[in-house]
């Protein structure tokens, strides 16, 4: 099998006494969608925040295309082509959509000043793909609806030629039409060879979009399986009971009586 795009090996991080992520290993190949599943507080967001540079891991190793990667800040992650849609969206509420999309990577004019017109024009183009009804380009994102804000966060992640895309519950606030649009976007990005970590609580969405699922429970990995090899009920069993079915590769967090 080819060298994985991303490998996270034995990643651990603790906040105070709580081991939020404990010896978790996951990997992701180019053109693949890997869903991260688990109950609330299982450690999914924390795990991907380590990959996106938001938290430094206490232990473990990250490899990108087979080479050890040093990711100490979100800036580092972006240099590896890792883009993230955070569960909290991470938008600056007081500036407009374009300013958020380009935050940290602004388009500047010949004189080094911000080229707001160019940024707005580019933002309009990306948003047209995500949410064609979006019109409120001039307002601070504080004034937008939850779904509109989510569209802005997605636009920011896909605009900059991501190689590795992390989507932490990207459709949580979206209506059915927009959710469908994001689903189509995921498949299109996958066709382009982008690797995607998708965190979702919607098991049907996951089975529609993902190639593999990795399930976490209490900070530990229950197991990883190809979606063809397991049923939805088996995956629910992994999430709720930590029970690893025969079709899955068990991790350190699988319950012993399985």
């Amino acid at each position, binding site marked *: 099998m080819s060298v994985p795009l991303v490998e996270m090996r034995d990643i651990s991080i603790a906040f105070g006494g709580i081991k939020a992520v404990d010896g978790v290993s996951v990997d992701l190949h180019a053109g693949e969608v890997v869903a991260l599943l688990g109950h609330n507080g299982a450690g999914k967001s924390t795990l991907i925040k380590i990959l996106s540079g938001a938290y430094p891991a206490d232990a473990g190793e990250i490899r990108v295309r087979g080479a050890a990667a040093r990711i100490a800040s979100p*800036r580092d992650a972006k240099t590896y082509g890792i883009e993230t849609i955070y569960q909290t969206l*991470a*938008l600056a*509420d*007081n500036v407009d959509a374009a300013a958020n999309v380009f935050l940290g990577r*602004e388009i500047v004019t010949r004189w080094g*000043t*911000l080229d707001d017109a160019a940024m707005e*024009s580019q933002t309009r183009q990306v948003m047209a793909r995500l949410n064609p009804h979006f019109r409120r380009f001039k307002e601070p994102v504080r004034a937008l609806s939850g779904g509109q804000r989510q569209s802005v966060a997605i636009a920011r992640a896909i605009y900059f030629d991501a190689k590795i895309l992390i989507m932490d519950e990207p459709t949580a606030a979206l209506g059915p039409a927009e959710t469908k649009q994001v689903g189509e976007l995921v498949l299109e990005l996958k066709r382009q060879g982008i690797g995607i970590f998708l965190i979702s609580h919607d098991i049907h969405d996951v089975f529609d979009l993902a190639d593999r699922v990795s399930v976490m429970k209490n900070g530990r990995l229950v197991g990883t399986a190809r979606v063809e090899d397991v049923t939805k009920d088996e995956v629910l069993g992994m999430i709720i009971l930590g029970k690893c079915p025969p079709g899955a590769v068990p991790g350190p967090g699988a319950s012993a009586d399985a």
Partner: protein
Amino acid sequence: MTRQLRALEIDPRLVGMLGALAAIWIGFDLLSGGAFLTPRNLWNLSVQTASIAVMACGMVLIIVTRNIDLSVGAVLGFVGMLVGVLQARLLPELLGLEHPATWLIAVAAAIVAGGAIGLFQGALIAYLGIPSFIVTLGGLLVWRGAAWWVTQGQTVAPMDGAFRKLGGGIEGAIGAPLSWAIAAVGCAAILAALWFARQRKLRFGFAVRPAWAEATVALLSCGAVVGAVAVANAYYLPPRVAERLAQAQGLAIPEGGLFIGHGLAVPVLVAIGVGLAMTVLAMRTRFGRYVFAIGGNPEAAELSGVNTRRTLMKVFGLMGVLCGIAACISTARLNAATNAAGTLDELYVIAAAVIGGTSLAGGLGTIAGAMLGALVMQSLQSGMVLLGVDAPMQNIVVGLVLVFAVWVDTVYRRGIR
């Protein structure tokens, strides 16, 4: 009416502040029997506002990032003492008295010293994570004490002649012809800026103001520039000074007296220059964008790859630089350096920024608003001096106005939500 205002794309809050300023000016003029709205008083008002206005520009960015700087008055005092000793004691020995480079060296030293102090405090705040309130409260005590130590409390005077121009006064005004030239350049720049902004929007197919609105904005802006210069030029030099000038240039003195206008004061030009530069910095550069993004959501800025710590340190460094410039203005105006210079300035600077619409919750504020806020504060103070209101009462009024202004702003903001 509202639709027309919207077409103009003028910030309604700015209009409100201009209205408040007009009310204050007219009110004082009526109460003082026409002594407030005279070229002389307005000219002095502009000079007195300069130092606070310069510092208020920096305070806006500090408050926008959800921080505060309580040390600006003390930094002004300390840097003022350094600059005073440098040009009144050290440089005359090295270069000789009234050397043409003295003022330049003094100003450069003030900027470097202020900037270094600001960067140092900013580093403590950004990298060590000490709250800015504490760092700058400590700074207030430290730099005020340091200002005393420079000369063991002695006042240093007089200042270099060229340096004194930074403080205004008769030598510190640029004269009518040059003022008109600046007005012309200013109007041309306004028209060019409007034109380029419009072209840019059209190129991307975005909506632009209707032609009448564009013309109105251009007319109002240019009118303000021309009006301000006209007032400054209508404040004439005292007859004896004018006669001396005429004699020196070998001019005949016409019948009915000689009227030579002061023109714009140098410190006012400095403040306007700082205001313009800071507006460009805040609105049109990456640095400014990051400052506002940090104020809106520090975590989001960090996750977007903004180097929030370095940005924060730079904001405090910038504040220090502006304190250095303000120190030059106030030292030059007094023609002396005293260790008490700038006492309580931190409060006036913060008040100016807040009256000018800067939100203490962060993420919101404009340079123009803060400079207007400084003008409002100084207008209140000068007006009360003109009316013979005693100092304790002045403080009471300014304090009440500050609270009232912020309340009005809060109500307004709730209204637009």
